[in-house]
């Protein structure tokens, strides 16, 4: 799952392979803002993974690994 999330992120923000790691702090590092997060969630939904934004703490989805843990 975490590879899938990183793959989608690479596509959304234009990162090279390996630049985003499972523990990259997405908001702190300026990789994502809230609209970017929504774009990611929509893409994940397309892959059959649904996360409810109303329950998402920013700190709980701040890295690809945390996101993957929630999605699994």
């Amino acid at each position, binding site marked *: 799952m975490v590879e899938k999330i990183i793959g989608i992120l690479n596509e*959304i*923000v*234009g*990162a*090279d392979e*390996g*630049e*985003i790691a499972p523990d990259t702090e997405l908001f702190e*590092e*300026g*990789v994502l*803002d*809230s*609209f*970017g*997060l*929504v*774009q990611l*969630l*929509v893409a994940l939904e397309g892959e059959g993974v649904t996360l*409810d*934004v*109303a*329950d*998402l*703490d*920013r700190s709980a989805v701040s890295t690809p690994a945390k996101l993957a843990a929630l999605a699994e």
Partner: protein
Amino acid sequence: MFILESLSNYAKTDRTALIYGADSLSFAELERQSNAFAAYLLKTFGADRTPVLLYGHKELSIPAVLFGCLKAGRGYVPVDTTFPPERVRQIAEEVQPKLIVDLYGLGLAAETVLDGAALRQILDGPGEACRETWIRPEDVAYMLFTSGSTGKPKGVQITAANIAAFRQGVAPWFDLDLDGGVFLNEISYSFDVSVCALYYALSRGMTLYTVDKQTLNDPKRLFAALRESDIDFWVSTPSLAEICVQSEQFCRALLPKVRGFVFCGEVLTKKLCGQMFERFPSVPVLNAYGPTEATVLVTAAQVLPAMLKDSRPVPIGYAFENVEARIVDREGKTLSAGEAGELLLIGDSVSPGYFKRPELNEKAFFLDEATGKRGYHTGDLCLIDQGLIYYLGRLDGQVKLNGFRVELEDVENNLTRVENVARAAVLPVLTDGKVTALTAFLLLEAPDGLPSLQRSKKIKAALAKTLPSYMIPRKFVVVDAFPLNTNGKVDKKALAATL
């Protein structure tokens, strides 16, 4: 002016004007504080009508400052904290205000600068209502700075008469028996959709339930706020609702009192309309449209299920009764129903023009000989069919992103000022026909050897000094050469094909 009349009328009731977190402000307090601010302005600056510049976000003290300016017969320029310091300074240099209210200690220069504490003292001070000094219909009430294609923001001047025309035009559409009730107040005061809250909702004695950008940026907090808001009426960009519908919890149970949704500021997709119908059965969804230059909104229509089956986009609505919408071709010839061309708006809500930009005013505004009223070239490609107006796209490089107006050339100009960037082309990324992000293509002066994300972080940091965050592209792509069209210009269509 109608809003000042309304404020003093509701000040005699026990109604609440604003709620922000645990704090609230009654109409009586708003009246008293705005009188105090007006008294301070008149005492300190006398008859000088230079507009007041206000740098802040959604603080409870802001409406009292804005209405205090109007009570003292002068306008205001609200600048949100979304604007980076350099852009705020550009605006201050252009406006040359005598007074700046700076709630975030930006260190701006003016004859007088008030910080939060100094402002509080003034608002708590004395002040009597004095109608003789109120703003006159022809005076500029506020000025909003929007993205300009030269890379420098331009100030749209709106008079008290323009606002009155807006209020008159919008009333039949927002008139859902809403005398009192709660109105969602989430739009920054430097964007004109906030005028719906300040000048429509407050004039109907409604309570503005205020949501700040920290809350908007954190879905969990946003839902907690919405849950306790008990709002009756929702006006927002489609983008905000698109975030919300990502959760199943965004439904009638979350907002049991809601009686209407109005979307404006960018393309409303059929997908979102369908989701809204499902989540909020029998609650009307309106699509509305208007450029800042014609005062917030000039068209509206209720979205009907049949419109979603139509091959055309969701219409932006019928022109308000006091606005004429006209479609013209490149030569300015009026086109017939169903033909696509530029939308012109003619009526009392059209701005007197941009601040100190005669050359731009010449191009964008005109006096309509037939009616003697002012008109504005929207630059929007539209068609009208049976009175309903359909938006088809822009005639220039302007896009609407999450409700914000962005001139792509503004972003490009600022990008070429970034170190090592030789040339830039910025393209909108479209999802379901709606702009969801910007991608910048860059030609570098010399290879930088950086991995893509590191480079984009560096460029984003440089851009953040001059551009508000919503104008910063999400993705940066380095090219070896730009595809050119026959005119020698960057071929954006060819670039778009690579997105």
